[in-house]
């Protein structure tokens, strides 16, 4: 089930490392506790956002896998 969020990044069509870098850039102005949804098509992004979130102490609230894309909701 998709979770509505105030913050959204469309990283579809981007390949590693761009989705993570776009995410880093976007969250610069956010505060801990904020929730962001990011959509990607890069198959590596599932592993990447899991590792990156764990590294930074962020929480993956949900991950929805579509036919050719992925929707992450991440709490920073």
């Amino acid at each position, binding site marked *: 089930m998709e979770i509505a969020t105030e913050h959204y990044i469309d990283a579809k069509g981007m390949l*590693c*490392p*761009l989705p993570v*870098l776009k995410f880093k850039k976007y969250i610069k102005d956010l505060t801990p506790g904020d929730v962001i949804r990011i959509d990607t098509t890069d198959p*590596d992004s599932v592993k990447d956002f899991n*590792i990156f979130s764990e590294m930074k102490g962020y929480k993956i609230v949900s991950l929805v896998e579509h036919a050719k894309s992925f929707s992450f909701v991440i709490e920073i």
Partner: protein
Amino acid sequence: MKTGHKLLTRMCNSFYGAATTYRQIDGEFTARTYLDSAASCLMLKPAYEASLKFLDHYSNTHSDTHNSAIISNQMYKWAHAQVLQFVNADPEEYTCIFMGSGSTAAINRVARSLSAARPEKPGVLISLMEHHSNDLPHRETHDFAEHIGCVGEGVDLGSMDLDALEAALSKHHDKIDYVAVTAASNVTGVVNPIHDIAQRAHAHGALVVVDASQILAHRALSMQGIVGDGSDDIDAVVFSGHKIYAPGSPGVLVIRRSLIDGGAPMEFGGGMVDQVFKTEYTVTTKFPDREEAGTPNILGAVNLGMCLDIMTRIGMDVIEQHESEMLSYLFNEMQSIAGITIYGDTDLSLVPRTATISFNLAGVDHGLLAAILNDYFNLALRNECFCAHPYVREMILQQLWDLDPDLEEAEIESKKGMVRASFGLNNSIDDAHRLVTALKEIDTRKDWYVSQYLRSEDGGFKHLKGSIDWNTYFCPSTVLESVL
């Protein structure tokens, strides 16, 4: 000095291209230092000269009637025997098959053959370290493929993670056809424990297919294991003749005959049949004839056999020691350069490695660094991902994530890669010294070197003074006229 060392010293200087000179960007003509053996090797001159003498007797095989055919037939068989001997394979149990222009053909062959011979085993396990040629054919010919990671993480990846291998073998129980693993990485030179891997695979009803392309020129490999009961023997090995100082020689598959003699050959044509009628034909049972349809690459195979013979005369232990000395020197010196990252575990007591080093210099993109090394120092190195994208990505990922997110996408894209120096029999410690000297010089004047280049549209780098006019170095018609 022992004979092996004497012969090694002589061979070091006996390569076509050893005296090649190019004009550096500053106008000076200097000798090129070839550090790209992991991509393809220079031609070992004595082996090729011996092969050229064979040309006096060259003919096609498949006939024992006229003298030249007899000699060519026997020399082609000799080449097969040289390979089996070089990898310590029992001719009663293993067959050597020449095919294509490198290991890619051999890997595609073994993937198709084994998946056809063992349909009850739909899966393969592939190490994360593989060159694409030892990854994609297995994915294409099996229902599922799982990649096995390495010990360690980030820039310090070691060899295949045997615990992860064991877990995957247990998880899939007896559904795994084989484990595909490189004996040494084409990116980092990290050497894998292939006999340990073989033993674990066999315990779960799987085979082991080893890509030996990056190890055979550098250290000994034996199909026979260490345990002595056959449990850790290797089932199949593939390699490229052009990566063992014999450019133009074929790809090689050495495989247990029992694994393929039940199925149909992969290619059909002359030389692999006994009888042919209008309505049917009978395939020969003779190996390797059955698997080598058509006229083979006879001269290439003979040249490969000559190379293997010379390397056996030198001694693989002598060659390994020669290259280990260069590697230790390089690690010590390069690790003293602050901005250098060497990829792969550099603790040689834990992780053995061939003399292949992939690295980056902070502040200089890999493409630019390789261009500077070529233009200013006549050092021939390769850059980017070396057809091993998953492995390279695993090692540079953290560095990519640390990039400034405001950089242009094209600039980010151009940082996805490494520079690789790969040493071989044609190199000496002086070549290692040249590389270190160049890296130290570039590290001290980074900004100046970077300022000498423009970023080209394709993401590469072009020197302000333009690039090489290759035709001035080699013009086919001029060369032909000079010999006619």
